[in-house]
Protein backbone atom coordinates (compact mmCIF):
# COMPACT_ATOMS: atom_id res chain seq x y z
CA UNK A 1 0.00 0.00 0.00
CA UNK A 2 2.52 2.59 1.12
CA UNK A 3 5.01 1.36 -1.45
CA UNK A 4 7.75 3.85 -2.29
CA UNK A 5 8.06 4.85 -5.95
CA UNK A 6 10.84 7.44 -5.73
CA UNK A 7 13.46 7.65 -3.05
CA UNK A 8 16.24 10.18 -2.46
CA UNK A 9 18.81 9.33 0.15
CA UNK A 10 21.15 12.01 1.49
CA UNK A 11 21.50 13.74 -1.86
CA UNK A 12 24.17 16.43 -2.20
CA UNK A 13 24.31 18.56 -5.35
CA UNK A 14 26.73 21.27 -6.38
CA UNK A 15 26.08 23.99 -8.92
CA UNK A 16 29.53 25.11 -9.95
CA UNK A 17 31.38 25.62 -6.68
CA UNK A 18 28.21 26.09 -4.65
CA UNK A 19 27.08 23.26 -2.40
CA UNK A 20 23.33 23.69 -2.97
CA UNK A 21 21.73 20.45 -1.77
CA UNK A 22 23.30 19.36 1.48
CA UNK A 23 21.33 16.30 2.39
CA UNK A 24 17.95 15.80 0.75
CA UNK A 25 16.22 12.62 1.82
CA UNK A 26 12.69 11.88 0.75
CA UNK A 27 10.35 9.08 -0.21
CA UNK A 28 7.42 9.51 -2.57
CA UNK A 29 4.61 6.99 -2.07
CA UNK A 30 3.11 5.42 -5.15
CA UNK A 31 -0.24 6.94 -6.15
CA UNK A 32 0.06 9.76 -3.63
CA UNK A 33 0.70 13.47 -4.15
CA UNK A 34 3.76 14.62 -2.26
CA UNK A 35 4.41 18.32 -1.99
CA UNK A 36 7.85 19.83 -1.54
CA UNK A 37 7.69 23.11 0.35
CA UNK A 38 10.29 25.66 1.37
CA UNK A 39 11.13 29.31 1.01
CA UNK A 40 12.68 30.85 -2.11
CA UNK A 41 16.13 29.49 -2.74
CA UNK A 42 15.65 26.53 -0.42
CA UNK A 43 16.58 24.05 -3.13
CA UNK A 44 13.25 22.74 -4.43
CA UNK A 45 13.98 23.26 -8.10
CA UNK A 46 17.50 21.94 -7.63
CA UNK A 47 16.02 18.78 -6.11
CA UNK A 48 13.79 18.17 -9.14
CA UNK A 49 16.63 18.94 -11.56
CA UNK A 50 18.79 16.45 -9.73
CA UNK A 51 16.10 13.77 -9.97
CA UNK A 52 15.81 14.12 -13.76
CA UNK A 53 19.59 14.17 -14.20
CA UNK A 54 20.07 17.77 -15.34
CA UNK A 55 22.31 18.02 -12.29
CA UNK A 56 24.40 15.17 -10.98
CA UNK A 57 24.43 14.48 -7.26
CA UNK A 58 27.93 14.49 -5.81
CA UNK A 59 26.78 12.15 -3.08
CA UNK A 60 23.74 10.11 -2.16
CA UNK A 61 21.32 8.15 -4.28
CA UNK A 62 18.15 8.60 -6.30
CA UNK A 63 16.10 5.43 -6.79
CA UNK A 64 13.04 4.78 -8.88
CA UNK A 65 11.24 1.58 -7.82
CA UNK A 66 14.36 0.64 -5.92
CA UNK A 67 16.70 0.98 -8.91
CA UNK A 68 19.32 3.73 -8.86
CA UNK A 69 18.87 6.34 -11.60
CA UNK A 70 21.44 8.93 -10.53
CA UNK A 71 24.32 9.01 -12.98
CA UNK A 72 22.08 8.18 -15.94
CA UNK A 73 21.66 10.86 -18.61
CA UNK A 74 18.40 12.87 -18.48
CA UNK A 75 16.77 11.24 -21.49
CA UNK A 76 17.40 7.78 -20.05
CA UNK A 77 15.99 8.78 -16.67
CA UNK A 78 12.74 10.25 -17.96
CA UNK A 79 12.24 7.31 -20.29
CA UNK A 80 11.74 5.17 -17.20
CA UNK A 81 8.39 6.88 -16.87
CA UNK A 82 8.90 10.37 -15.51
CA UNK A 83 7.09 13.45 -16.76
CA UNK A 84 8.82 16.72 -15.89
CA UNK A 85 7.01 20.05 -15.80
CA UNK A 86 9.76 22.56 -15.11
CA UNK A 87 9.64 25.90 -13.35
CA UNK A 88 8.74 28.52 -15.95
CA UNK A 89 7.08 25.88 -18.16
CA UNK A 90 9.90 25.23 -20.61
CA UNK A 91 7.60 25.15 -23.62
CA UNK A 92 9.02 25.60 -27.11
CA UNK A 93 7.72 29.05 -28.01
CA UNK A 94 8.63 28.85 -31.70
CA UNK A 95 6.81 25.54 -32.21
CA UNK A 96 3.06 25.14 -32.42
CA UNK A 97 1.02 23.64 -29.60
CA UNK A 98 0.65 20.49 -31.65
CA UNK A 99 4.39 20.28 -32.31
CA UNK A 100 5.09 20.73 -28.60
CA UNK A 101 2.89 17.72 -27.91
CA UNK A 102 4.38 15.68 -30.74
CA UNK A 103 7.93 16.30 -29.67
CA UNK A 104 6.98 15.11 -26.19
CA UNK A 105 5.33 11.90 -27.35
CA UNK A 106 7.70 8.95 -27.19
CA UNK A 107 6.60 5.99 -29.27
CA UNK A 108 2.94 5.24 -29.80
CA UNK A 109 1.52 2.47 -27.65
CA UNK A 110 -2.12 1.39 -27.70
CA UNK A 111 -3.03 3.93 -25.04
CA UNK A 112 -1.61 6.97 -26.85
CA UNK A 113 -4.78 8.20 -28.59
CA UNK A 114 -6.80 7.89 -25.38
CA UNK A 115 -4.19 9.86 -23.47
CA UNK A 116 -4.18 12.62 -26.07
CA UNK A 117 -7.97 12.76 -25.95
CA UNK A 118 -7.82 13.03 -22.17
CA UNK A 119 -5.32 15.90 -22.43
CA UNK A 120 -7.62 17.85 -24.73
CA UNK A 121 -10.58 17.12 -22.47
CA UNK A 122 -8.61 18.40 -19.48
CA UNK A 123 -7.36 21.46 -21.35
CA UNK A 124 -9.86 22.40 -24.08
CA UNK A 125 -7.87 25.56 -24.85
CA UNK A 126 -5.03 23.43 -26.18
CA UNK A 127 -7.36 21.73 -28.65
CA UNK A 128 -8.60 25.14 -29.73
CA UNK A 129 -5.11 26.55 -30.27
CA UNK A 130 -3.45 23.41 -31.61
CA UNK A 131 -2.06 25.18 -34.66
CA UNK A 132 -0.96 28.34 -32.82
CA UNK A 133 2.62 29.10 -31.92
CA UNK A 134 3.08 28.19 -28.27
CA UNK A 135 4.78 31.54 -27.67
CA UNK A 136 1.49 33.31 -28.33
CA UNK A 137 -0.42 31.46 -25.58
CA UNK A 138 -1.36 33.09 -22.27
CA UNK A 139 0.61 32.22 -19.15
CA UNK A 140 -2.06 29.82 -17.97
CA UNK A 141 -2.29 28.11 -21.34
CA UNK A 142 1.49 27.73 -21.46
CA UNK A 143 1.38 26.03 -18.08
CA UNK A 144 -1.37 23.74 -19.34
CA UNK A 145 0.70 22.88 -22.39
CA UNK A 146 3.68 22.10 -20.19
CA UNK A 147 1.58 19.76 -18.05
CA UNK A 148 -0.02 18.27 -21.15
CA UNK A 149 3.41 17.32 -22.50
CA UNK A 150 3.99 15.26 -19.38
CA UNK A 151 0.66 13.49 -19.86
CA UNK A 152 1.01 12.25 -23.44
CA UNK A 153 3.29 9.42 -22.33
CA UNK A 154 2.34 6.60 -19.96
CA UNK A 155 4.33 8.16 -17.11
CA UNK A 156 4.35 6.74 -13.63
CA UNK A 157 5.73 9.79 -11.91
CA UNK A 158 5.11 13.46 -12.55
CA UNK A 159 7.45 16.14 -11.25
CA UNK A 160 5.73 19.52 -11.30
CA UNK A 161 7.61 22.68 -10.33
CA UNK A 162 5.50 25.63 -9.15
CA UNK A 163 2.67 25.38 -11.69
CA UNK A 164 0.73 28.25 -10.08
CA UNK A 165 3.51 30.83 -10.40
CA UNK A 166 2.23 34.08 -11.84
CA UNK A 167 -1.27 32.79 -12.59
CA UNK A 168 -4.65 34.30 -11.71
CA UNK A 169 -6.72 32.54 -9.00
CA UNK A 170 -9.30 31.31 -11.47
CA UNK A 171 -6.61 29.71 -13.60
CA UNK A 172 -5.05 28.14 -10.54
CA UNK A 173 -8.41 26.58 -9.74
CA UNK A 174 -8.47 24.99 -13.15
CA UNK A 175 -4.94 23.70 -12.62
CA UNK A 176 -5.87 22.19 -9.28
CA UNK A 177 -8.70 20.33 -10.97
CA UNK A 178 -6.39 19.10 -13.69
CA UNK A 179 -3.73 17.98 -11.24
CA UNK A 180 -6.37 16.22 -9.19
CA UNK A 181 -7.50 14.36 -12.29
CA UNK A 182 -3.87 13.36 -12.90
CA UNK A 183 -3.70 11.72 -9.48
CA UNK A 184 -5.73 8.85 -10.83
CA UNK A 185 -3.06 8.04 -13.40
CA UNK A 186 0.28 8.81 -11.81
CA UNK A 187 2.22 9.58 -8.69
CA UNK A 188 2.97 13.28 -8.29
CA UNK A 189 5.84 15.16 -6.69
CA UNK A 190 4.78 18.78 -6.60
CA UNK A 191 6.76 21.89 -5.73
CA UNK A 192 4.39 24.64 -4.73
CA UNK A 193 4.55 27.98 -2.91
CA UNK A 194 0.82 28.46 -3.00
CA UNK A 195 -0.14 26.84 0.28
CA UNK A 196 -3.84 26.62 -0.51
CA UNK A 197 -3.04 24.72 -3.67
CA UNK A 198 -0.64 22.43 -1.84
CA UNK A 199 -3.26 21.80 0.81
CA UNK A 200 -5.91 21.02 -1.76
CA UNK A 201 -3.79 18.41 -3.51
CA UNK A 202 -1.17 16.89 -1.27
CA UNK A 203 -1.27 13.71 0.77
CA UNK A 204 2.27 14.07 2.12
CA UNK A 205 4.62 17.00 2.60
CA UNK A 206 8.35 17.55 2.80
CA UNK A 207 9.89 20.77 4.05
CA UNK A 208 13.23 21.77 2.60
CA UNK A 209 15.39 24.51 4.06
CA UNK A 210 18.89 25.57 3.07
CA UNK A 211 19.29 22.50 0.88
CA UNK A 212 18.20 20.01 3.53
CA UNK A 213 14.94 18.18 4.08
CA UNK A 214 13.99 19.15 7.60
CA UNK A 215 10.44 17.85 8.20
CA UNK A 216 7.97 15.54 6.59
CA UNK A 217 4.70 13.80 7.29
CA UNK A 218 1.08 13.71 6.25
CA UNK A 219 -0.16 17.01 4.80
CA UNK A 220 -2.89 17.21 7.42
CA UNK A 221 -0.25 17.35 10.16
CA UNK A 222 1.42 20.36 8.53
CA UNK A 223 -1.88 22.12 8.04
CA UNK A 224 -2.51 21.79 11.77
CA UNK A 225 1.00 22.83 12.86
CA UNK A 226 1.06 26.62 12.95
CA UNK A 227 4.52 26.82 14.51
CA UNK A 228 6.10 24.76 11.73
CA UNK A 229 4.36 26.74 9.00
CA UNK A 230 5.45 30.01 10.55
CA UNK A 231 9.03 28.92 10.96
CA UNK A 232 9.67 27.56 7.46
CA UNK A 233 7.04 29.13 5.27
CA UNK A 234 6.36 32.39 7.09
CA UNK A 235 2.61 31.84 7.13
Amino acid sequence: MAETLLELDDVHTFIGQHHILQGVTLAVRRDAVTVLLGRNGAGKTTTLRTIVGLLRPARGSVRLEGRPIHGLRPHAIVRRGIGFVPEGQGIFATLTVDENLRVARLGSDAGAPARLARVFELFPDLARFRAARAGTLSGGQKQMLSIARALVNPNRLLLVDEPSKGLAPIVIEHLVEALRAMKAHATVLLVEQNFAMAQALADDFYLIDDGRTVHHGPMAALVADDALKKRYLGI
Partner: protein
Amino acid sequence: MRRAAPAALVVGLALLPLAAIEPRVYLTLTIAGLAMGMLIFLVAAGLTLIFGLMDVLNFAHGALFSWGAYAGFTVLVLLNERLGWAEAPSLGLNALLLLAAVAAAMAVGLVLGVVLERVIVRPVYGRHMFQILITLGATIVLEELIRIGWGPNDQVLPVPFTFQGSWDLADVIVLRFPVVAIVLGLVVYGAIALVLRRTRVGLIVRAGVENGEMIQVLGHDIHRYFTGVFAAGSALAGLGGLMWAIFSQSVRPAMGGEQLIFAFIVVIIGGLGSVSGSLLGALIVGLSYNYVAFLLPKAAIGVNMALMVVILLLRPAGLFGSGK
Protein backbone atom coordinates in the same frame (compact mmCIF):
# COMPACT_ATOMS: atom_id res chain seq x y z
CA MET B 1 5.76 40.61 -40.40
CA ARG B 2 8.77 39.53 -38.44
CA ARG B 3 10.36 37.90 -41.47
CA ALA B 4 9.28 40.26 -44.18
CA ALA B 5 11.35 43.17 -42.93
CA PRO B 6 14.73 41.41 -43.18
CA ALA B 7 13.85 40.08 -46.64
CA ALA B 8 12.85 43.56 -47.78
CA LEU B 9 16.15 44.82 -46.43
CA VAL B 10 18.06 42.45 -48.68
CA VAL B 11 16.10 43.42 -51.76
CA GLY B 12 16.50 47.11 -50.95
CA LEU B 13 20.19 46.70 -50.36
CA ALA B 14 20.57 44.80 -53.60
CA LEU B 15 18.90 47.55 -55.62
CA LEU B 16 20.84 50.40 -54.04
CA PRO B 17 24.05 50.02 -56.11
CA LEU B 18 22.05 50.41 -59.34
CA ALA B 19 22.38 54.12 -58.75
CA ALA B 20 26.14 53.95 -59.17
CA ILE B 21 26.71 50.94 -61.43
CA GLU B 22 25.79 50.42 -65.03
CA PRO B 23 22.94 47.85 -65.29
CA ARG B 24 24.86 45.20 -67.26
CA VAL B 25 27.79 45.23 -64.87
CA TYR B 26 25.31 45.32 -62.02
CA LEU B 27 23.69 42.09 -63.21
CA THR B 28 27.03 40.34 -63.47
CA LEU B 29 27.98 41.52 -59.99
CA THR B 30 24.61 40.43 -58.62
CA ILE B 31 25.01 36.92 -59.96
CA ALA B 32 28.51 36.71 -58.59
CA GLY B 33 27.27 38.05 -55.25
CA LEU B 34 24.40 35.58 -55.04
CA ALA B 35 26.78 32.74 -55.88
CA MET B 36 29.26 33.83 -53.26
CA GLY B 37 26.39 34.16 -50.79
CA MET B 38 25.19 30.64 -51.52
CA LEU B 39 28.67 29.22 -51.02
CA ILE B 40 29.04 31.02 -47.71
CA PHE B 41 25.60 29.70 -46.80
CA LEU B 42 26.81 26.12 -47.27
CA VAL B 43 29.40 26.75 -44.57
CA ALA B 44 27.17 28.84 -42.32
CA ALA B 45 24.22 26.42 -42.30
CA GLY B 46 26.17 23.78 -40.39
CA LEU B 47 27.83 26.32 -38.15
CA THR B 48 24.56 27.89 -37.06
CA LEU B 49 22.87 24.57 -36.23
CA ILE B 50 25.94 23.26 -34.43
CA PHE B 51 25.90 26.37 -32.29
CA GLY B 52 22.13 26.47 -31.94
CA LEU B 53 21.76 22.91 -30.74
CA MET B 54 24.65 22.52 -28.33
CA ASP B 55 26.19 25.99 -28.00
CA VAL B 56 29.35 24.62 -29.59
CA LEU B 57 31.70 27.13 -31.20
CA ASN B 58 33.33 25.13 -33.94
CA PHE B 59 36.35 26.86 -35.42
CA ALA B 60 37.41 23.64 -37.15
CA HIS B 61 34.55 24.11 -39.59
CA GLY B 62 36.91 26.03 -41.88
CA ALA B 63 39.38 23.17 -41.97
CA LEU B 64 36.60 20.83 -43.12
CA PHE B 65 35.94 23.33 -45.91
CA SER B 66 39.58 23.08 -47.00
CA TRP B 67 39.61 19.29 -46.76
CA GLY B 68 36.45 19.08 -48.83
CA ALA B 69 38.06 21.30 -51.44
CA TYR B 70 41.23 19.18 -51.60
CA ALA B 71 39.26 15.92 -51.69
CA GLY B 72 37.20 17.18 -54.63
CA PHE B 73 40.29 18.68 -56.27
CA THR B 74 42.05 15.31 -56.09
CA VAL B 75 39.12 13.56 -57.74
CA LEU B 76 38.95 16.21 -60.46
CA VAL B 77 42.68 15.97 -61.16
CA LEU B 78 42.85 12.18 -61.13
CA LEU B 79 39.79 11.56 -63.27
CA ASN B 80 40.92 14.25 -65.68
CA GLU B 81 44.45 12.91 -65.99
CA ARG B 82 43.34 9.30 -66.44
CA LEU B 83 40.15 9.78 -68.42
CA GLY B 84 40.10 13.38 -69.56
CA TRP B 85 36.63 13.97 -68.08
CA ALA B 86 37.18 17.63 -67.33
CA GLU B 87 38.42 18.56 -70.78
CA ALA B 88 35.89 16.47 -72.68
CA PRO B 89 33.26 18.78 -74.20
CA SER B 90 30.52 16.48 -72.96
CA LEU B 91 27.87 17.59 -70.48
CA GLY B 92 27.36 14.00 -69.31
CA LEU B 93 31.02 13.32 -68.51
CA ASN B 94 31.48 16.78 -66.98
CA ALA B 95 28.45 16.39 -64.76
CA LEU B 96 29.54 12.90 -63.74
CA LEU B 97 32.94 14.25 -62.84
CA LEU B 98 31.42 17.07 -60.81
CA LEU B 99 29.17 14.58 -58.98
CA ALA B 100 32.16 12.36 -58.18
CA ALA B 101 34.06 15.33 -56.79
CA VAL B 102 31.03 16.47 -54.79
CA ALA B 103 30.62 12.98 -53.34
CA ALA B 104 34.29 12.90 -52.33
CA ALA B 105 34.18 16.38 -50.77
CA MET B 106 31.05 15.61 -48.77
CA ALA B 107 32.26 12.18 -47.68
CA VAL B 108 35.57 13.57 -46.45
CA GLY B 109 33.80 16.42 -44.64
CA LEU B 110 31.38 13.99 -43.06
CA VAL B 111 33.96 11.48 -41.86
CA LEU B 112 36.27 14.17 -40.49
CA GLY B 113 33.29 15.86 -38.82
CA VAL B 114 32.18 12.69 -37.06
CA VAL B 115 35.72 12.03 -35.84
CA LEU B 116 36.13 15.63 -34.63
CA GLU B 117 32.82 15.57 -32.82
CA ARG B 118 33.50 12.28 -31.08
CA VAL B 119 37.12 12.86 -30.21
CA ILE B 120 37.59 16.54 -29.47
CA VAL B 121 34.23 18.33 -29.24
CA ARG B 122 32.38 15.91 -26.97
CA PRO B 123 34.78 16.28 -24.03
CA VAL B 124 34.35 20.08 -24.03
CA TYR B 125 30.55 20.42 -24.19
CA GLY B 126 29.46 23.55 -22.36
CA ARG B 127 32.95 25.08 -22.11
CA HIS B 128 33.40 27.77 -24.73
CA MET B 129 37.01 28.64 -23.98
CA PHE B 130 38.10 25.02 -24.40
CA GLN B 131 36.00 24.67 -27.56
CA ILE B 132 37.70 27.64 -29.16
CA LEU B 133 41.17 26.45 -28.22
CA ILE B 134 40.69 22.82 -29.16
CA THR B 135 38.93 23.48 -32.46
CA LEU B 136 41.54 26.08 -33.40
CA GLY B 137 44.18 23.49 -32.55
CA ALA B 138 42.45 20.95 -34.77
CA THR B 139 42.37 23.54 -37.56
CA ILE B 140 46.13 24.03 -37.39
CA VAL B 141 46.74 20.27 -37.45
CA LEU B 142 44.34 19.70 -40.34
CA GLU B 143 45.85 22.55 -42.35
CA GLU B 144 49.37 21.26 -41.75
CA LEU B 145 48.27 17.83 -42.95
CA ILE B 146 47.09 19.44 -46.17
CA ARG B 147 50.48 21.10 -46.62
CA ILE B 148 52.19 17.75 -46.05
CA GLY B 149 49.85 15.84 -48.36
CA TRP B 150 49.39 18.32 -51.20
CA GLY B 151 52.14 20.88 -50.73
CA PRO B 152 52.00 24.44 -49.39
CA ASN B 153 51.26 26.31 -52.63
CA ASP B 154 48.16 27.32 -54.51
CA GLN B 155 47.19 24.79 -57.14
CA VAL B 156 45.08 25.24 -60.22
CA LEU B 157 41.94 23.21 -60.33
CA PRO B 158 40.66 21.72 -63.60
CA VAL B 159 37.13 23.05 -64.01
CA PRO B 160 34.94 20.72 -66.09
CA PHE B 161 34.50 22.18 -69.56
CA THR B 162 30.72 22.63 -69.41
CA PHE B 163 31.00 24.78 -66.30
CA GLN B 164 33.68 27.09 -67.66
CA GLY B 165 33.02 30.34 -69.42
CA SER B 166 29.76 32.14 -69.75
CA TRP B 167 26.51 32.50 -71.52
CA ASP B 168 25.89 35.70 -73.39
CA LEU B 169 22.25 36.59 -72.87
CA ALA B 170 21.23 39.75 -74.65
CA ASP B 171 24.57 41.38 -74.00
CA VAL B 172 24.62 40.36 -70.37
CA ILE B 173 27.49 38.06 -69.59
CA VAL B 174 26.37 35.30 -67.24
CA LEU B 175 29.17 33.13 -65.89
CA ARG B 176 28.13 29.51 -65.87
CA PHE B 177 29.52 28.16 -62.65
CA PRO B 178 28.02 30.87 -60.42
CA VAL B 179 24.62 29.89 -61.77
CA VAL B 180 25.34 26.27 -60.83
CA ALA B 181 26.36 27.46 -57.36
CA ILE B 182 23.17 29.47 -56.91
CA VAL B 183 21.00 26.53 -57.92
CA LEU B 184 22.94 24.21 -55.64
CA GLY B 185 22.59 26.60 -52.70
CA LEU B 186 18.84 26.79 -53.23
CA VAL B 187 18.59 23.00 -53.43
CA VAL B 188 20.56 22.60 -50.20
CA TYR B 189 18.46 25.24 -48.45
CA GLY B 190 15.29 23.52 -49.64
CA ALA B 191 16.52 20.15 -48.42
CA ILE B 192 17.44 21.49 -44.98
CA ALA B 193 14.11 23.31 -44.68
CA LEU B 194 12.27 20.16 -45.71
CA VAL B 195 14.03 18.02 -43.10
CA LEU B 196 13.55 20.62 -40.38
CA ARG B 197 9.89 21.29 -41.18
CA ARG B 198 8.58 17.91 -42.23
CA THR B 199 10.38 15.18 -40.30
CA ARG B 200 10.38 14.09 -36.68
CA VAL B 201 14.16 14.44 -36.51
CA GLY B 202 13.77 18.00 -37.77
CA LEU B 203 11.10 18.72 -35.17
CA ILE B 204 13.38 17.50 -32.40
CA VAL B 205 16.32 19.51 -33.75
CA ARG B 206 14.22 22.68 -33.97
CA ALA B 207 13.00 22.16 -30.42
CA GLY B 208 16.55 21.43 -29.28
CA VAL B 209 17.85 24.62 -30.84
CA GLU B 210 15.30 26.55 -28.82
CA ASN B 211 15.85 24.69 -25.55
CA GLY B 212 18.37 21.85 -25.44
CA GLU B 213 17.81 21.06 -21.81
CA MET B 214 14.09 20.61 -22.26
CA ILE B 215 14.52 18.28 -25.19
CA GLN B 216 16.60 15.98 -22.99
CA VAL B 217 14.05 15.86 -20.19
CA LEU B 218 11.43 14.98 -22.78
CA GLY B 219 13.39 11.79 -23.40
CA HIS B 220 15.56 12.61 -26.42
CA ASP B 221 19.26 11.82 -26.53
CA ILE B 222 20.54 15.21 -27.60
CA HIS B 223 24.07 13.90 -28.23
CA ARG B 224 22.77 11.60 -30.94
CA TYR B 225 20.99 14.42 -32.72
CA PHE B 226 23.98 16.67 -32.27
CA THR B 227 26.32 14.11 -33.84
CA GLY B 228 23.93 13.93 -36.78
CA VAL B 229 23.77 17.69 -37.17
CA PHE B 230 27.52 17.98 -36.82
CA ALA B 231 28.07 15.32 -39.48
CA ALA B 232 25.61 16.90 -41.91
CA GLY B 233 27.05 20.37 -41.28
CA SER B 234 30.56 19.04 -41.88
CA ALA B 235 29.53 17.43 -45.17
CA LEU B 236 28.08 20.78 -46.26
CA ALA B 237 31.29 22.54 -45.27
CA GLY B 238 33.18 20.06 -47.45
CA LEU B 239 30.78 20.72 -50.31
CA GLY B 240 31.18 24.47 -49.81
CA GLY B 241 34.94 24.07 -50.00
CA LEU B 242 34.82 22.24 -53.29
CA MET B 243 32.37 24.72 -54.77
CA TRP B 244 34.52 27.62 -53.66
CA ALA B 245 37.57 25.94 -55.19
CA ILE B 246 35.79 25.57 -58.52
CA PHE B 247 34.49 29.13 -58.26
CA SER B 248 38.01 30.49 -57.74
CA GLN B 249 39.62 27.73 -59.87
CA SER B 250 42.24 27.02 -57.25
CA VAL B 251 42.90 25.41 -53.89
CA ARG B 252 45.01 26.69 -51.01
CA PRO B 253 45.70 25.14 -47.61
CA ALA B 254 44.49 28.25 -45.75
CA MET B 255 41.35 28.77 -47.85
CA GLY B 256 39.02 27.57 -45.09
CA GLY B 257 40.12 30.08 -42.48
CA GLU B 258 39.15 33.03 -44.66
CA GLN B 259 35.74 31.61 -45.45
CA LEU B 260 35.13 30.90 -41.79
CA ILE B 261 35.28 34.62 -41.01
CA PHE B 262 32.53 35.29 -43.54
CA ALA B 263 30.53 32.35 -42.23
CA PHE B 264 30.71 33.58 -38.65
CA ILE B 265 29.62 37.06 -39.72
CA VAL B 266 26.70 35.45 -41.53
CA VAL B 267 25.71 33.29 -38.57
CA ILE B 268 25.70 36.32 -36.29
CA ILE B 269 23.81 38.51 -38.77
CA GLY B 270 21.23 35.78 -39.38
CA GLY B 271 20.67 34.92 -35.73
CA LEU B 272 22.35 31.99 -33.98
CA GLY B 273 20.55 28.76 -34.78
CA SER B 274 18.47 30.07 -37.67
CA VAL B 275 19.04 28.45 -41.07
CA SER B 276 16.79 30.93 -42.89
CA GLY B 277 18.63 33.75 -41.16
CA SER B 278 21.92 32.33 -42.36
CA LEU B 279 20.70 32.18 -45.94
CA LEU B 280 19.60 35.78 -45.82
CA GLY B 281 22.77 36.86 -44.03
CA ALA B 282 24.91 35.03 -46.57
CA LEU B 283 23.17 36.72 -49.47
CA ILE B 284 23.63 40.13 -47.83
CA VAL B 285 27.33 39.46 -47.31
CA GLY B 286 27.88 38.02 -50.79
CA LEU B 287 26.08 40.84 -52.57
CA SER B 288 27.52 43.71 -50.59
CA TYR B 289 31.01 42.26 -50.92
CA ASN B 290 30.75 42.18 -54.70
CA TYR B 291 29.15 45.60 -55.12
CA VAL B 292 31.64 47.25 -52.80
CA ALA B 293 34.59 45.39 -54.26
CA PHE B 294 33.64 46.89 -57.61
CA LEU B 295 33.05 50.42 -56.34
CA LEU B 296 35.66 50.66 -53.59
CA PRO B 297 37.89 47.60 -53.77
CA LYS B 298 39.69 48.25 -50.50
CA ALA B 299 36.54 48.57 -48.40
CA ALA B 300 34.94 45.21 -49.25
CA ILE B 301 35.57 43.29 -46.04
CA GLY B 302 35.21 46.39 -43.90
CA VAL B 303 31.72 46.93 -45.28
CA ASN B 304 30.71 43.45 -44.17
CA MET B 305 31.92 44.12 -40.65
CA ALA B 306 30.09 47.46 -40.65
CA LEU B 307 26.91 45.74 -41.87
CA MET B 308 27.19 43.25 -39.05
CA VAL B 309 27.53 46.02 -36.50
CA VAL B 310 24.57 47.96 -37.90
CA ILE B 311 22.35 44.89 -38.02
CA LEU B 312 23.27 43.92 -34.48
CA LEU B 313 22.52 47.43 -33.28
CA LEU B 314 19.08 47.25 -34.88
CA ARG B 315 18.45 43.63 -33.95
CA PRO B 316 20.75 42.37 -31.22
CA ALA B 317 19.69 38.75 -31.77
CA GLY B 318 20.29 38.89 -35.53
CA LEU B 319 17.75 38.94 -38.35
CA PHE B 320 15.90 35.76 -37.38
CA GLY B 321 17.38 35.24 -33.93
CA SER B 322 15.27 34.22 -30.98
CA GLY B 323 17.56 36.08 -28.61
CA LYS B 324 18.06 33.08 -26.38
